[in-house]
């Protein structure tokens, strides 16, 4: 285990100022429009201090809590995904010239960003997105640029939400790797650790005091509490085989009766990567932009090939989503595409419980 130190609440803003003087723009959580959202922030004052976040299937509520902690809530409305794999990205532009059109590629302007408050589920998801976008035969230049400019301040979860199930997927609540700095929040400050060279540089700038023995014990204890408190668990032994041998299960029909095929689940999922490419031609016809935007397997055009929509019913789209996430992802990336963050359950307007559905369809009984 790397060196650790204690950062008192009064000194917490040093983290921001040090990151800023190292050239990073800080991205962190705030309460915006009744949810915890990540956005550009400049100081600790904007963090969601002292709040309570109650999360249930299809319901998220923020209220004032009876504590002064900054990260005493399960996770935000989105993970790190929107900051690296942008919901809309200009891929290139074609422009008419005398000779015919030519292609222009956009410059990738990657602003160095420090993401403050990444959770274990987010970092596990980040690893998966890295695999998908960066480590294949065709590294994605946009994702890679943003990724390479990213500094990660992880936070171990001290509170779980009703929809969280990271303990069962093995991804949380404790962060194992993938961070530059890691925080455990206690009642009066943070245990700080570093996980990289970049992290060490900031670590060394902070006014840290030694971590007390109780501090270490408390930090371990609150993680253990989170594990004990999680109400949901994905029974993922044999999930892959079970889903693919239950492709005609009646439960797909039952879930389709509730499902709105709105795609909210895929959009908040930190590992989902589907996108479509769209062409936006200027009115004068002289240039055209080729843009990619997030798509969802719940959309009709996702499986369209001339004249047919392969997944023309919600039942088939829901099955695609779940069988990919929990089944075929295994073959593609050696693990499921689910890191237990619970967002697809919290943010489903129809309040569908992904874990319950999965266990019903494919759990070993």
């Amino acid at each position, binding site marked *: 285990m790397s060196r650790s130190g204690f950062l008192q609440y009064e000194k917490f803003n040093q983290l921001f100022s040090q990151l800023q003087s190292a050239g990073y723009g800080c991205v962190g959580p705030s309460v915006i429009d009744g949810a915890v959202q990540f956005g550009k922030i400049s100081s600790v004052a904007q963090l969601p201090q002292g709040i309570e976040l109650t999360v249930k299937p299809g319901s998220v509520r923020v209220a004032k809590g009876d504590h002064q902690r900054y990260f005493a809530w399960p996770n935000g409305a989105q993970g790190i995904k929107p900051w690296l794999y942008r919901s809309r990205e200009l*891929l*290139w532009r074609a422009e008419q010239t005398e000779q015919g059109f030519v292609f222009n590629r956009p410059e990738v302007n*990657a602003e160095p960003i420090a993401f403050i408050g990444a959770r274990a589920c987010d970092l596990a998801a980040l690893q998966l997105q890295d695999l998908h976008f960066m480590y294949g035969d*065709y590294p994605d*230049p946009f994702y890679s640029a943003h990724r390479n400019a990213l500094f990660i301040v992880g936070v171990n979860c001290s509170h779980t939400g009703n929809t969280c199930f990271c303990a069962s997927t093995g991804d949380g609540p404790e962060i194992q790797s993938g961070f530059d700095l890691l925080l455990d929040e206690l009642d009066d400050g943070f245990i700080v650790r570093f996980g990289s060279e970049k992290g060490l540089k900031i670590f060394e700038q902070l006014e840290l005091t030694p971590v007390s023995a109780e501090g270490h014990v408390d930090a371990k204890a609150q993680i253990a509490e989170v594990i004990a408190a999680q109400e949901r668990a994905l029974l993922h032994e044999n999930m892959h085989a079970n889903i693919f041998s239950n492709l005609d299960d009646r439960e797909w029909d039952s879930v389709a009766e509730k499902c709105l095929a709105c795609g909210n689940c895929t959009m908040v999922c930190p590992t989902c990567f589907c*996108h479509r490419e769209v062409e936006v031609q200027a009115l004068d016809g002289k240039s*055209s932009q080729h843009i990619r935007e997030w798509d969802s397997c719940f959309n009709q055009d996702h*499986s369209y090939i001339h004249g047919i929509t392969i997944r023309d019913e919600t039942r088939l789209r829901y099955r695609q989503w779940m069988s990919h996430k929990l089944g075929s992802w295994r073959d593609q990336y050696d693990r499921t595409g689910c890191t237990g963050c619970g967002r697809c359950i919290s943010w489903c307007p129809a309040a569908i419980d992904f874990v319950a559905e999965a266990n019903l369809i494919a759990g070993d009984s």
Partner: protein
Amino acid sequence: MSAQPIANPYLPYEAEIVERIQETPDVFTWRLRFVDEQLHQQYEFQHGQFNMLYQFGVGEIPVSVKNREQNLLTHTIRVVGRVTKAMAELKAGHRIGIRGPYGRGWPIQDCTGKDVVFITAGLGCAPAISAIQHVAECRTCFGRLVIMQSVKHRSDMLWQKQYDEWRQLPNTQVLLAASREKTNWPNWERGRVSVLFEDAIYDKQNCTVMLCGPDGMMSGSARMLAELGVPEEHIYLSLERNMQCAIGHCGHCQFGSAFVCKDGPVFSYPEVKEVLGHRGF
């Protein structure tokens, strides 16, 4: 702030239409040259691979590489929808965009000395044409060549002449079927492609079968061939799915665990057996 030009795998290259050939009322062939001469010389492909072709202001679509003739890249395109309709309007001298080639082609290399069987159906058998041509051109490199093709109506058959030429080749069998034809015609059977299976002569233990056509036809044929004794791993098929990026990022072409664009479009039967022909995949 770092602004660095990084290789952009989504970016196509400009290419010029050198010649345009109208094959049938709704099928045309382009012969193309990259504007960048060096790129043009470097371009290589395998039979069964495809390119992403871009139509200015409209969009990009996957199209199999048909051939390289007289040092020009050829694509044969059937007009079905928006992009292909717009492409049909272009003339020699116009530009399009190309990136590729992508995916895994037919296992032609592994076929040396073996019998090669092509089973195609419908109009969309473009991915197989270049492979057939290759085998036909070197009749001594391979064992028997058997081509089975079915269409709805005899008149749907593209390149009837081409098939007649192949029929003349040594050690070659061309079998044709029309599923909706009412009368008998010489060289034609009535029915689906499977009616031809009985007449096809090839070494079931030492052959490679390549399938191309609608999913249902491919899964049915593969099953029957396996029953007839062709080892499953010697049966290959080419799939078609929605493709936006062609490099395994966009997720549209997923077929069970496979990305058709990079793991395919050509698959061996065992690789996709689990979901082939299953509604919704």
